[in-house]
C-alpha cells in the first residue's frame, strides 16, 4: 500500500452497502428544501407571478424540459451509479407519472417523456424519497458529471473516479457563482487507462491518475465538445494535485463565466472561448485566476476525500478460486452464452468476478429504453448477483458491475428471459441514438426509427461479429446528443426543405484516440440511409487487413474508397 492510500486507510475494508454515495440528514434536508422550492416556483408560474421566460431556466435546472408532446423529466443518475432500491423507485415513477417506461441517455441519466407540469413536483418528491434528484440535468449550469461505467470494478483502473465525481457533484450543486453560465457545462472524469468517459469531448475532462508517490491527481482537459462545432479538447494541465482539485475547477469556471460568449447561443460554449482566445492565452488566464483565488478556502481536505471514498468501499468480495473454471466450462458448453460473455462482459479487478453489460439495444428496439418491469427485474438481479449495484453507460446500456464468474450463467439466463441478453455490446447494432423528432422539440429528423432499421438490417449476430467493433451513433439534429461526431460511423439528421436527410461521417472516436468524424459526402434521404451504411460496411470488409477493426481500416484507407462506393452508384 502506498503512502497516499495508507494515509486514508478505511476503518473497514469492505461494505455490504451498495457502492453509491449514501445520503445523510444534511443531504436529505437540502433535497427537501429543493423540492419545496420547485413546488413554489410551479405555483408562482401557474399563478402568473413568473413569466414562462423566467420560469424556463428554473424548471430546466430541475430537469424539466418542454418537448413536442409533453414535459420531459430528466432524472440525474450521478455518474451513472444506482442502487437497486433507486432503480425500483425509478420504475415506480415510470408507472405512476409516465407511461411505464424510461429512456437511458448518453449522459447516464434517465428521461421520462410524458410528465405533467402539475405532477412534476410530486415526481421530484418521489425521486427524493430514494435520494435521487433531477438537479442541473439541464440549463446553463454544471450538469450531471459522467464517468466510466466500470468505475470501482475495472481491471485497468488506476484511481476510482466515483470519489471525485461525487465531490464535483456536491461542489457544483446550486453553485452560487456558476448557476447562470453562458451555456451548459459538462464534466467527465475517468480513472482508467482506457478512457470510457470521453474526456476529450467535454467542457472539462479529467483523467485521475497517480503521482510518483502514489498520491492522486489529475490531468485536466477543457474546451472539447460536440454539437454544432465539434472540437477535441485541449490539455490544460498534465498534473493537478488532489488538494487543488476544486480551486482549479473554480478558476476554469470563473474565466468561462466572465469571458464566455453570451450574445449568440451557438458561440457560448467554453470550446469557442478557448478556440478564440487560443489555448496558450486561455491557459494563462486560468492559471492566473488559480494563482490569485483563495486556495485555502477550496483546498480539498484528505479527511473529506477519505469520508467520501468510504461510501465507495469495495463490496464484500469472496475468494472464489473455482469461479473462473466454472465459467470456462459453461462457456465451452453453450455457444450463445459464449457469445454473450465474449461481448457483454468486462474484466474485473477482483479475481473470480466480472462486470456484465445488459444491452438495451434489442434488435429493432429503441436504444436506451427500458420498461418499468425490466427496471424492477434488473434491480432484483442486482440484489441477488451484484451487491445491489447497477450502472448506466454513456452508450445507453446498463451494467451489473460485480458478478461472480460462477453465477454469470444464471445472470445470463435471467436476462435472456427478460429480453435483455442481446449479445451485441460494441457491435454495429449497439447504436447510440437521441430521441430525435419522435420526441424532441429541437430535432430536424427522426433518429429512433433509423436506429431500428439499421439494427434490423444487421440483426444477424454472426455477421455483426464478422464486422467486429464498430460504433454507430445517430443524432436527430446538429446539437449532437447522439454523439454522431465520435461514432466510427456517424449519422446526423438534417432538414432539407421539409424532408429528412442524413449526413454521414466516418472515423470518429470518443476514446483515447479521440477524433471527430469526417463528412463522407452529400446527405442521403431517409429511405437510403440504411443502404448507405451497408455500403460503407461492405467497403470496409472488402478492404480490411487481417484483424483490422473498422476505425483502424478507415484511418489507413481514408475517406476515398467509401466515398467512391457510396456515390459512384448514384
Amino acid at each position, binding site marked *: 500500500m502506498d503512502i497516499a492510500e495508507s494515509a486514508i486507510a478505511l476503518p473497514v475494508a469492505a461494505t455490504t452497502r451498495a457502492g453509491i454515495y449514501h445520503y445523510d440528514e444534511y443531504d436529505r434536508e437540502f433535497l427537501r428544501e429543493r423540492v419545496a422550492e420547485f413546488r413554489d416556483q410551479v405555483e408562482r408560474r401557474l399563478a402568473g407571478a413568473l413569466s414562462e421566460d423566467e420560469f424556463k431556466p428554473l424548471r430546466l435546472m430541475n430537469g424539466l424540459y418542454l418537448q413536442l408532446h409533453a414535459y420531459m423529466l430528466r432524472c440525474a443518475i450521478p455518474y451513472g451509479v444506482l442502487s437497486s432500491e433507486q432503480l425500483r423507485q425509478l420504475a415506480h415513477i415510470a408507472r405512476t407519472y409516465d407511461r411505464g417506461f424510461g429512456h437511458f441517455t448518453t449522459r447516464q441519466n434517465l428521461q421520462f417523456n410524458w410528465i405533467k407540469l402539475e405532477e412534476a413536483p410530486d415526481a421530484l418528491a418521489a425521486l427524493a424519497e430514494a435520494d435521487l434528484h433531477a438537479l442541473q440535468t439541464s440549463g446553463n449550469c454544471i450538469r450531471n458529471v459522467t464517468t466510466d461505467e466500470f468505475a470501482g470494478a475495472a481491471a485497468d483502473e488506476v484511481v476510482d473516479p466515483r470519489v471525485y465525481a461525487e465531490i464535483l457533484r456536491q461542489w457544483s450543486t446550486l453553485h452560487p457563482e456558476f448557476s*447562470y*453560465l453562458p451555456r451548459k457545462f459538462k464534466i467527465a472524469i475517468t480513472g482508467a487507462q482506457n478512457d470510457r468517459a470521453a474526456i476529450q469531448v467535454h467542457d472539462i475532462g479529467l483523467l485521475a491518475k497517480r503521482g510518483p508517490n502514489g498520491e492522486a491527481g489529475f490531468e485536466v482537459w477543457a474546451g472539447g465538445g460536440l454539437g454544432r462545432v465539434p472540437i477535441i479538447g485541449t490539455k490544460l494541465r498534465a498534473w493537478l494535485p488532489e488538494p487543488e482539485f476544486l480551486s482549479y475547477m473554480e478558476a476554469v469556471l470563473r474565466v468561462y463565466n466572465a469571458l464566455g460568449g453570451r450574445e449568440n447561443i451557438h458561440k457560448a460554449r467554453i470550446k469557442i472561448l478557448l478556440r478564440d482566445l487560443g489555448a496558450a492565452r486561455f491557459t494563462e488566464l486560468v492559471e492566473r485566476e488559480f494563482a490569485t483565488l483563495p486556495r485555502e478556502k477550496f483546498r480539498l481536505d484528505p479527511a473529506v476525500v477519505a469520508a467520501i471514498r468510504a461510501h465507495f468501499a469495495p463490496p464484500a468480495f469472496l475468494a472464489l478460486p473455482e469461479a473462473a473454471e466454472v465459467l470456462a466450462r459453461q462457456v465451452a458448453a453453450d455457444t450463445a452464452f459464449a457469445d454473450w460473455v465474449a461481448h457483454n462482459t468486462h474484466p474485473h479487478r477482483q479475481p473470480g468476478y466480472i462486470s456484465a453489460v445488459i444491452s438495451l439495444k434489442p434488435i429493432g428496439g429503441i436504444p436506451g429504453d427500458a420498461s418499468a418491469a425490466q427496471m424492477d427485474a434488473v434491480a432484483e438481479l442486482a440484489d441477488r448477483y451484484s451487491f445491489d449495484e447497477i450502472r448506466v453507460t454513456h452508450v445507453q446500456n446498463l451494467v451489473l458491475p460485480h458478478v461472480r464468474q460462477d453465477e454469470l450463467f444464471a445472470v445470463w439466463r435471467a436476462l435472456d428471459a427478460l429480453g435483455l441478453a442481446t449479445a451485441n455490446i460494441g457491435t454495429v447494432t449497439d447504436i447510440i441514438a437521441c430521441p430525435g423528432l419522435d420526441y424532441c422539440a429541437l430535432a430536424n429528423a427522426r433518429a429512433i426509427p433509423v436506429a431500428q432499421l439499421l439494427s434490423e438490417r444487421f440483426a444477424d449476430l454472426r455477421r455483426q461479429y464478422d464486422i467486429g467493433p464498430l460504433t454507430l451513433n445517430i443524432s436527430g439534429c446538429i446539437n449532437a446528443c447522439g454523439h454522431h461526431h465520435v461514432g466510427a460511423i456517424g449519422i446526423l439528421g438534417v432538414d432539407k426543405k421539409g424532408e429528412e436527410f442524413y449526413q454521414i461521417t466516418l472515423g470518429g472516436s470518443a476514446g483515447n484516440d479521440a477524433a471527430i468524424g469526417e463528412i463522407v459526402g452529400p446527405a442521403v434521404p431517409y429511405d437510403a440511409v440504411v443502404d448507405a451504411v451497408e455500403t460503407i460496411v461492405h467497403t470496409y470488409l472488402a478492404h480490411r487487413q487481417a484483424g483490422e477493426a473498422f476505425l483502424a481500416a478507415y484511418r489507413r484507407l481514408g475517406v476515398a474508397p467509401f466515398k467512391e462506393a457510396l456515390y459512384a452508384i448514384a
Partner: protein
Amino acid sequence: MPLLEQGFPVADRFVPVADDAPLPDAPAIVSLARLQREAEALAGRNVALGVQVASTTKPEDLAPLLDRVALLVVEFPKFRDGRGFTIARTLRERYGYTGEIRAVGHILPDQYAFLVRCGFSSVAVPEAADLSVWAAALGRFHVAYQAAVDAAPVVSGLRRRLALG
C-alpha cells in the same frame, strides 16, 4: 425601487446621478466612466460615493477605485447573465473590498441567496415585488455544498450550514 438587505427593506441613502448633472451634497451613485474621468475631483468630496458598473466590467479595472467607493452597484441586464456573481465574488475575495455591493436590474427572487453567497450586500427589487417571496427565497436553503464569500460553517465534508434569511 425597494432595497433589500438580509431580506428586509431598508432606506436607500444613495441617489443616482446622471453623467451631466451636478453632484448633490449627499451620497451619490455615478457611472464608472464619470468616476474615471473626474477621479481627482470626486476624491476630494467628503460624502460617500457609489459607482454603477455593467455586467461586462472586469473586476481588475475596478481594483484601483475600490478605496474611493462606499458602494458598488452591479447591473444585471438579464437574470440569465451570471457575470455579476463573478464580479462581486472577485472583488470580495481577490481585492478584499468591504464596502456595499448592490445588485440592480433583472433579478429573480430565486437568485437572492446566490447573490448573498457571492458577496452582494443589497438588492434593488421591482416596485411591485412581493417582498415575502424574496425573504422566503433567501431563507430557503439551510445547506450549501461549497465554499463561497459567506462564512457559513462546515458541518460535514463539503457541506455548510447556511443562515441567510
